[in-house]
């Protein structure tokens, strides 16, 4: 085990000796993250022959840098063109793209970069400081507890559907229904696949997200001149550095949300298989719940964007914990890292921390160095990248639609996935035009399969007895917190409605989603 500040300092300095590989890896990570459909996992797989021949510390520095930077890069298309490249960035679109439409793209990109970096740094430091404890943490959470965490995420459907609860719930259930397409988790029986083997693994997530958000948005964009609602105002906002400074200021002002939601990301990331999708929605729901201005969420709230971005970067530190501590990768990218570690004869598990502490902790220190590099590389870019809002929609929309084709195809290589994206694009467009909540559909599609997986597993463990859902102390505590959250939400809503009835803003009830 590593102990003493001197050792930590030595490792931190050692991680900076890998700057020569960290800097290009960060650039590469941002680029692949910014191309929807590509991911750190695909990139690392392609580059596996290269990483296998590097020495283990250099190769891990390279891989964690690509991984962290790709998480940050994926926020860029989500903010600028409403196109999340991964499930973990769907929540980024909610407020990120809303800010873009208000001409605040530069501010949104700065928030995304700053929240990602600080969230990542904070959780990496936590991981280094409490690694032995955190490694046990993943083992404390059982399937039953995960069911409650999923319900936390699913409750967001009800939260965002307050303007038209019936339509919101219909949309949410439609999403959940889409989520059950594919083979069931116990027997592998195909459900609603209509004979398409491409649907056996469920509705492909990236094409569905791209369709629901990006294609439907592009279709709506056809109806106006520019992405930003007021192009002149947008021109003023993207020129100069004001937006960048405003974004940083917002993050510093709302440091508590940043810290809290990145911590949520870290905790959920530790649970193998959970991942950024659930983390970002749970964090978003929590930020909204405790916000003094919940109505601004979905309308370009910096707090909403901070929550989504810091949590999904918190996940990056979390997923590495079970990999190193018990030899179980917390996600697909971690699985690729496991290949490299094992190839180099590194024995994963508790003994890693006693036998090779410099490797175990060195990975987190490299992550720390990568985040520091990102501050200097990414923040200055916000000003220039943000100008995309000035591109006329007649140019931008065909570009977005072309990109959706590439993004849909990139993940699995099936032409079928392009059709999935188009179908979901039409569904999203109809939802937008008829007042059904697109985000509610999306949450159902994203979290439905995870919820079903944990629920079925729990019920199988309890041999069909529903009491299993209330059999764990952690789970019961979470149930209690869930009830409290919902009660708090109801109470705040009631208070706000009363205030609105008596105030001048009573008429403003447009659904932002």
């Amino acid at each position, binding site marked *: 085990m590593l102990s003493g500040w001197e050792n930590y300092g030595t490792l931190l300095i050692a991680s900076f000796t890998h700057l020569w590989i960290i800097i290009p890896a960060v650039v590469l990570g941002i680029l692949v993250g910014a191309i929807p459909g590509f991911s750190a996992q695909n990139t690392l797989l392609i580059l596996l022959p290269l990483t296998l021949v590097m020495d283990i510390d250099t190769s891990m520095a390279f891989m964690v840098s690509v991984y962290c930077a790709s998480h940050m890069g994926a926020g860029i298309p989500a903010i600028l063109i409403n196109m999340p490249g991964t499930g973990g960035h769907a929540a980024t679109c909610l407020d990120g793209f809303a800010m873009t439409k208000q001409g605040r793209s530069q501010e949104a990109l700065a928030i995304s970069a700053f929240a990602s970096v600080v969230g990542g740094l904070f959780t990496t430091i936590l991981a280094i400081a409490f690694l032995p404890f955190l490694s046990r943490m993943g*083992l404390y*959470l059982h399937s039953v507890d995960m069911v409650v965490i999923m319900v936390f995420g699913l409750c967001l459907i009800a939260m965002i559907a307050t303007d038209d609860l019936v339509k919101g719930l219909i949309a949410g259930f439609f999403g959940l229904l889409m989520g059950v397409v594919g083979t069931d988790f116990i027997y592998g029986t195909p459900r609603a696949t209509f*004979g398409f083997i491409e649907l056996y693994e469920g509705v492909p997530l990236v094409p569905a997200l791209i369709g629901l958000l990006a294609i439907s948005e592009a279709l709506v964009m056809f109806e106006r001149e520019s992405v930003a609602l007021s192009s002149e105002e947008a021109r003023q906002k993207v020129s100069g550095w004001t937006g960048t400074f405003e974004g940083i200021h917002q993050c510093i002002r709302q440091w508590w949300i940043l810290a809290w939601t990145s911590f949520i990301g870290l905790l959920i990331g530790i649970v193998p298989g959970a991942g950024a999708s659930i983390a970002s929605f749970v964090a978003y729901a929590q930020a909204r719940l405790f916000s003094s201005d919940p109505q601004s969420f979905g309308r370009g709230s910096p707090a909403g964007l901070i929550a989504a971005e810091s949590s999904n970067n918190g996940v990056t530190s979390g997923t590495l914990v079970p990999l190193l501590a018990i030899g179980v990768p917390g996600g697909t990218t971690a699985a690729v890292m496991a290949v490299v570690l094992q190839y180099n004869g590194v024995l994963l598990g508790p003994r890693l921390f006693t036998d090779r502490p410099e490797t175990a902790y060195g990975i987190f220190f490299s992550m720390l160095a990568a985040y520091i590099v990102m501050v200097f590389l990414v923040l200055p870019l916000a000003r220039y990248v943000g100008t995309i809002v000035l591109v006329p929609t007649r140019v931008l929309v065909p570009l977005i639609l072309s990109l959706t084709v590439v993004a849909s195809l990139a993940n699995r290589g099936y032409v079928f996935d392009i059709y999935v994206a188009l179908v979901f694009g039409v569904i999203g467009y109809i939802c937008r035009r008829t007042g059904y909540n697109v985000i509610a559909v999306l949450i159902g599609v994203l979290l439905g399969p995870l919820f079903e997986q944990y629920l079925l597993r729990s019920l199988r463990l309890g041999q069909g007895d529903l009491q299993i859902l209330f059999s764990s102390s952690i789970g019961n505590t979470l149930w209690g917190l869930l009830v409290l959250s919902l009660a708090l939400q109801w109470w705040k809503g009631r208070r706000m409605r009363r205030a609105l009835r008596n105030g001048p803003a009573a008429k403003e009830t447009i659904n932002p989603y």
Partner: protein
Amino acid sequence: MLAETAFMNRRGFLKIAGSFVAASAVGGATGKGFAANYPSRTFDVIVPTREGGGADGLSRAFINSWKDKIGQNFERQFSPGAAGQVGYELYFKQREMDGSNLLFGNVSAEMIMYALQKPDFKFPEDIYYFCGIDTDPCGIWVSGESPFTSVEEVVETAMKRPVSIAVSRLPHPGTIGLLALAEATGAQFNIIPYGGGNPQVVAVLNGEAECGGGGTAGYIEGARILGVFDREEFVLAETRGDVPLINEVFGTDIPSLYSTRSWAVHRSWADANPDDYKVLQDTSAAVFDDPRFKEEIVQSGVTPWDGVRFRDQSTCMELAQSMVELATKYGDQLTAG
């Protein structure tokens, strides 16, 4: 249903373009003409599981030696899903039967999938498994903190109340072993599929499931193997220690149950091109004598070296056939129907 034109990637494009160029170059050469130069291009391999798993590491180590012996490189595509069905259907429906398209799969688990899910190909008519690589004996294991110290205790408890056993997936030889043991002893096992080896391991380590069932080759620090479904000997005794054979403990007659990863090829191509097929068989068998292969397996720890052994076509096909029969026998318990 997998549309014939559904998959078109960079390689697909290059393949078509390359075919045109090659066809013009040889001026209408026949298939025979190509056969003399076999293998004439990079092998495309479908792996019906996720990257990062055992099949990934094992196939990589094998390829690193095999490519020098056969004179061509290998490009792998991972197509997981539906217990391997996605990868197999992709292989049989969208890959040319030209000897340059191979499949690397888990014979035991995927033949159970074949029997239960009835995918769109025929066994044994369509496929030859020709080079089995490893042996992963199935058994029952527990975490280091488990109160169970022997397989007798597990069965004894399971005769009084259901004992939860985590498996990676239901269509697996390990599950069949558990069902056979339950049938023979009257034990009640609550078998829970976790959808992969990693979540299965976590479930056993965190105590959510009382035991783990399935392969014993994967190293899990602190775990204890209580018994294996092997009729003769525990092949991993050298690395995993002495483990009782379940048949000996309970006097049962359960067949040996193990997983074997193997290379496979379209049978019609192999039957039509016996000389080329022999090249595949001979060069793959030669990999086992290559010290580099051993070194890589030992270094990566992807599977214990004492479990690595060559299985030829007839042994692999026999194993596959026996798995189809066992899966058919226990079909009702392995499926929702």
